[in-house]
């Protein structure tokens, strides 16, 4: 038996191709949305993995440093280093801001303050070297677009890019720029000159800090106001043979800090931080699925209405209902298949230039294909219903 659906598609290939193209672009958007979600999850995992930490020590009762703000004193790290099971511990700061490149263009990045050679440093470099000086050097993620040797401006200071790394992004997808911790602490809490002068004047006007006969008190208080000794977190690597949770528990109990293991941090980043985004994307996927179904249903329905006479003739000459239903179903599936191929190609082509990281997984593509075929099959039911109701007598008139 010949394939009636296949012949009809070949006969009206232009109509099918154009419809498939339109549907395909919609499917491409759907696959991209799924890829954006996967990318967000992957960014979260990359953030956790690339930090090199087993534990995150943050301000008590916060879920920092990525999901909530956390501020702890930078000498906490010394007491953490002395806790049982701790191999390495390092201060780290995170803050997001616009960084100016040599060309003068702004780039939104997450600036990470690190201690060279300690946890938090980028795990591998594409080019250049790690930070070796205590000031004004930076390692940038390749997605920032900064080049080796380029001078970038972070707040008041210029930093020379000495290394380039990859897949170092914030949970929001912003590429990272690593700078020395001291510079980061200064930049994070740096006030403008007017604010500093204003603070100094306020302090000087306060008789408690500006006592006659106590020389140096005012200067000491003013120096304290303009310096920062806070960091966002302490990253901890545990000694081999120690369970992270076993190391974390005494820090929580005795240091009055919150400590998260890798699993806990994954829960915060994946289940909590991007939960709203995931719901939004899920909603978009549902809407796109509905729109796709409506388009396929409309197209197949109108195509079927255009073939009512032929369907009546087919029924009159003894074609089974199942053959006619099969023809319409196959056309809907064919349309879905064309659309899926176009969508997959489109998503693959535009994913690299998409502003966010789009991770297209094979399993999502397979799920997308099955969902497309299911939607097309469901969408064809309306047309099948119409076709089965056609009276063969219509062929006679």
């Amino acid at each position, binding site marked *: 038996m010949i394939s009636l659906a296949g*012949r009809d598609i070949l006969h*009206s290939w232009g109509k099918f191709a154009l419809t498939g193209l339109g549907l395909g672009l919609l499917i491409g958007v759907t696959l991209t949305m799924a890829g954006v979600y996967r990318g967000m999850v992957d960014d979260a995992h990359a953030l956790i993995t690339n930090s090199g930490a087993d534990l995150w020590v943050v301000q008590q009762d916060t879920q920092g440093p990525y999901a909530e703000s956390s501020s702890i004193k930078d000498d906490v790290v010394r007491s953490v280093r002395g806790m049982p099971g701790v191999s390495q511990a390092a201060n780290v700061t995170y803050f997001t801001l616009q960084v100016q490149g040599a060309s003068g263009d702004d780039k939104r990045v997450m600036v990470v303050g690190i201690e060279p050679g300690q946890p938090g440093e980028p795990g591998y470099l594409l080019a250049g070297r790690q930070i070796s000086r205590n000031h004004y050097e930076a390692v940038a993620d390749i997605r920032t677009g900064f080049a080796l040797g380029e001078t970038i401006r972070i707040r008041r200071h210029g930093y020379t890019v000495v290394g380039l790394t990859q897949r170092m992004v914030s949970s929001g997808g912003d590429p990272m720029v690593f700078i020395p911790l001291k510079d980061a602490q200064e930049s994070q809490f740096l006030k403008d000159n007017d604010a500093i002068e204003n603070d100094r004047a306020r302090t000087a006007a306060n008789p408690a800090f500006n006592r006659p006969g106590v020389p140096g008190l005012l200067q000491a208080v003013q120096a304290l106001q303009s310096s920062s000794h806070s960091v966002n977190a302490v990253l901890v690597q545990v000694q081999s043979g120690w369970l992270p949770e076993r190391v974390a528990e005494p820090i929580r109990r005795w240091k009055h800090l919150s400590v998260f293991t890798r699993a806990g941090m994954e829960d915060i980043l994946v289940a909590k931080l991007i939960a709203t985004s995931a719901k939004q994307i899920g909603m978009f996927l549902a809407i796109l699925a509905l729109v796709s179904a409506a388009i396929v249903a409309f197209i197949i329905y109108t195509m079927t209405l255009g073939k009512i006479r032929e369907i009546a003739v087919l029924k009159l*000459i*003894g*074609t089974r209902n199942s053959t006619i239903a099969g023809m319409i179903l196959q056309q809907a599936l064919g349309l879905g298949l064309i659309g899926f191929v176009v969508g997959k190609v489109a998503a693959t082509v535009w994913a690299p230039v998409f502003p966010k990281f789009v991770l297209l997984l094979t399993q999502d593509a397979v799920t997308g294909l099955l969902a497309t075929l299911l939607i097309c099959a469901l969408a064809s039911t309306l047309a099948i219903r119409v076709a089965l109701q056609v009276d063969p*007598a219509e062929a006679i008139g």
Partner: protein
Amino acid sequence: MNAVNATKNPAGGIRIEGLRKVYGHGDTAVEALKNVNMAVAPGEVVGLVGPSGSGKSTLLKCLGAIIEPTSGRMYLGDELIYDNGWTSSDLRALRRDRIGFVFQAPYLIPFLDVTDNVALLPMLAGVPNGQARSRAMELLTALDVAHRAKAEPSQLSGGEQQRVSIARALANRPPVILADEPTAPLDSERALAVMRILNQMAQQAQTAIIVVTHDEKIIPTFKRIYHIRDGQTVEERGEGRAL
């Protein structure tokens, strides 16, 4: 005009006795066919003529197993149709295997080429594709359209399309062909050519052919004509003009 000889019982062919068809119920009931009797022998081509609203279409639908009559009997050969034991599936198989249809417009399937338009019926009946296409080519050759075998219906002239539709009607070697105004859109020459083909095919395949027509050009070619008026048929001897 002579009354129909309903007792005639051709071996093969088609015969109806006391056929009635009533649409609706109660006060709104309309009796479209009243005690229709008709018999067409194998190899015979008869005309069925009548004014609009006379019941031609209803009779054609009953003969074509498309609608079930309210009462009466219909025999295809010696087999009684509509004896309450026929399911819609049986009637569909009957239309596919034992009744051929030729329409006023050819109604060829536009996305199939000429060969597959003809071969489709045998394929639907389960004949392997190769055999079905061979059978189609035989018919297309017999009807002088084999040279257009690979063409699409839209590339054919009106006469060629009608010949292909006749080939399709003959594809399953049905004992009966119902032709509904097959020559209406054709000029005299082509209309007579179609009638010549139908007569040849009736003779060669011993097929009973009923031609519903208004076409004055072809009415003289019938040896027997059934006139239908107000739901009743009356048989008349035709001129039987040579084709």
